[in-house]
C-alpha cells in the first residue's frame, strides 16, 4: 500500500517518492513511517502529527491512500 507523508525536512526522504508517497506492507502502522523517516526517538514526543487529519498514535494502523501530516510551523504572521 501507499500513504502520502508530509515529512519534516530533518527526516530521511529515502523512502519517499516524488509525490511524497511511501510504500508500506499491509498491516503497517504509523510507527513504520517513523522508522522509515528515521525520526530520532527523543524527538518523537514533541512532534505533532495526524493521520487523515485525526489525532493518531504510533500504533495507529494505516490504509492505502492515508495522509500522514507533521506540523511544520510557517514563519509569518
Amino acid at each position: 500500500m501507499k500513504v502520502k507523508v508530509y515529512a519534516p525536512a530533518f527526516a530521511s526522504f529515502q523512502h519517499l517518492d516524488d509525490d511524497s508517497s511511501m510504500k508500506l506492507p499491509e498491516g503497517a502502522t504509523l510507527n513504520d513511517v517513523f522508522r522509515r523517516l528515521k525520526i530520532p526517538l527523543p524527538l518523537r514526543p514533541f512532534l505533532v502529527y495526524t493521520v487523515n487529519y485525526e489525532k493518531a498514535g504510533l500504533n495507529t494502523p494505516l490504509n492505502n491512500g492515508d495522509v500522514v501530516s507533521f506540523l511544520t510551523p510557517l514563519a509569518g504572521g
Partner: protein
Amino acid sequence: MKGYTGKILFVDLSTGRIVAEPIPDEVYESFLSGVGLGCYVLHKKIPKGADPLGPDNVLGFVSGLLTGTGSVMTGRWMAVAKSPLTGGWGDANCGGTFSPAIKRCGYDGIFFRGTSDRPVYLYVDSHKAELRDATHVWGKDAVEAEDILEEECAKKQGKPKIAVIGTSGEKQSLISGICNDHGRIAARSGLGAVMGSKKLKAVVLAGNGRITCENPELMKTISKEFTGKVRKINIPRFLSGRLLEIAANLQSRMTRVAVPDGIMAAGILKKWGTGFNNVMGVVNGDTPIKNWNGSGLDFGKSRYRNLAPDLLKQREVKRYSCYSCVVGCGGISRIEDIAEGTFRETHTPEYETVSAFGSLLLNGNLDSILYINELLNRAGMDSISAGHAVAFAIECFENGILTSEDTGGLQLAWGNTEAIVKLLKQMIHREGLGDLLADGVKAASRRIGKGSLKYAIHVGGQEPGLHDSRFDPMMGVHYCADPTPGKHTIGCFQYYNYVQLWNEVSWAPKISIYPKYEEYLASSENATKSVAISCYKQVIDGIGGCLFAMTMGVHNWNPFRMLNAATNWHKTADEYLEIGMRIQTLKQLFNIREGIDPRNNRAHPRMAGNPPLENGPLEGKSVPIHEMVALYWEHMGWHGETGIPAKETVEKLSLTDFVA
C-alpha cells in the same frame, strides 16, 4: 445568483450625487471582485496624473467575490485607491465583519470621488444611501467614532458595520489606514489619508440583503470538508511556545526545504494567533532586527523572550474570529503597567506589530507594545510603517543626523521604551519631528537630508513587512516587483511550498524537497514560482480570502472549487491563474500610466544583504533581488529590463482598452 451583486455604488463627495452602477458579468469573469473589480473601476474612473489627495482620486471599499456565499475564510474586504505613499496603485485589506456588510447593502463595492467641504459619513442600508454630517465625530479616534456612529445608526436587527478613519487619516498622514471592528485596520498604502482628504470620516452599512450562491449545497460540502479538518487539528496543551523556539533553531540550521501540509499550522494559529512567530522569527532569521541591521544576538534572549507567544497569550481575555473564519486567530488582550496609558484592552497585537515595535527597535517591553498597538489602532496608523519610521529616527539620532533639538528633547535609543512611545505620539499628533515621520521614511529622509536616506528602509516609498528577504529571498522579489511595493502578503518560497499550486495549476513547478541554497538563485524555476504565487494571491484578494487559509494548501482550502460552486463558471485553475495575471498586469499598467518607473522600486541594500550581516542565522547571506525581479518580470510577460507589460501580454490578457 452568482455570488456577486452585479452593482457598485458610486458617490461623488463634491456634488453629493449617489448612483448605483451596473457591472456586466464579463467584468467579474475577467477580474473577479475585491482587488480585481477595484482595479477595473479605478483604471476607468481615475484620470491620469490625479493627485492622490485631491478630488480626482477614487477610493473604493470592495467585498470579495466569495464573501457571504457559504464559503469559509473569505470574509476580507479591500480598500483601493491611488496611493499617496507610493504615487501608484494602492490597496490594503482587512478582516472582521465589514466585507459581508457591503454585499448585504446590495453592492459589490462602494466608490468615492470628489471632496466634501465638511466632514461627512455615508450611510447605506437596503433601501437608501445618503451622506450625513460627521462634524460631531471628526477629531475622534477610530474606536470612539465607531461607538458613536454604531449607536446613532443602530436598527432593530442590530448594529451597523463601520469603516472609519482615526485622527491620523484626518491629518492625512501618508502611513494611515482605514479601521473597522473597533481597531482592526486595512493599514497599507496610506489609504486613510485619501479618506481624510475627502473629509469622509466613515462608511456605515446597515443592509440586510441576501448574498447569493449558485450551488449552495456544493459550497456547503466544500466548507464542511475544510472545517472538519481544521477543528480536529490542535496543539496539545503540554506543548509550550518554547517548542516553537526550538523548532526555529532547528529550522535556521536546516540545509534543505520540504513541502509541508499547511493545514497543520491551523493548530498553531488557534493556540497563539500570529504571535506564534514573535520569538520564532527572531531565532530563525525571519524577523528583521534593529532596522534590518542586527540579529537576535543584538536583541538578546532576555529581551526577545519577553515577547514570547505564551506571555502574550496570558494577557488574552477573549478570542474572536473574522466573518466566515473557522480558525479564530484574533483576540482581545489586557494592557497593564503603562503609567501614561488610559486603555485597558486592545486587540491582541499581530506579529507584524510586535516585531515593528519589538525586534526592529530592540524593545523587549511587551506592555509598551500592547499600549502602542491600541494607540495605533485608534489613530488608524499602519504599525509596519510607523515602526520603521521610529527605527529610522533612532538610527539618525544615533548617528548625529538628528539631535535633541530636533526630537523635542527625546533621547532616542534602541529599546528606550519611553522615548519610543513619546515619539509615536508626536507622529500621531503630527507634532515636531513626528510630523515628518508621519509620512513614512522616504518622505522624512528627503526632508531631513544629511545622508539620512541610508537609514530609510522602504521600497518605492512603502516600508516593507516584517519578514526578512535574506531569510526568504522571494519575499524580497515581491517587496520590489509588486505594483504595491513593500507588501509581505504577495509571495515567498514558504507560501509557494505551503500552497502546493502544482496540484491544480498545470505550469506551477512541482517540488518535494530541495536544498535551501536554491532559494538564493535567480533562476527561471524560481521566477515561475514567483509568477504562480503572485497571480494566485490576486485571486485570493479577488474573493476576499484569508492569507492563512491560502497557506493551508490548495488541497485543503480550494478557492477554484469554491469559485465554481458560487458562480457555476466551470473554470479551471489555469484559467483562474490567468485572471490573477490579468489583475497583476492591470495594476502594473496603472503604475506605468501614473509615471512610476518599476526599476525605481529598489530594495534597500540591507534587505538584499549588502553588506551581509556578520552574525546570527542570516550571517553572510545576500540575495540577488534585482536579478530575480527582472526574471519575474520576464516570466510575467513584462519587459525584463523595464518591468513594462509587453504588448503581446496586454493583448493576450485582453487589456488593450486600458492602455492609452
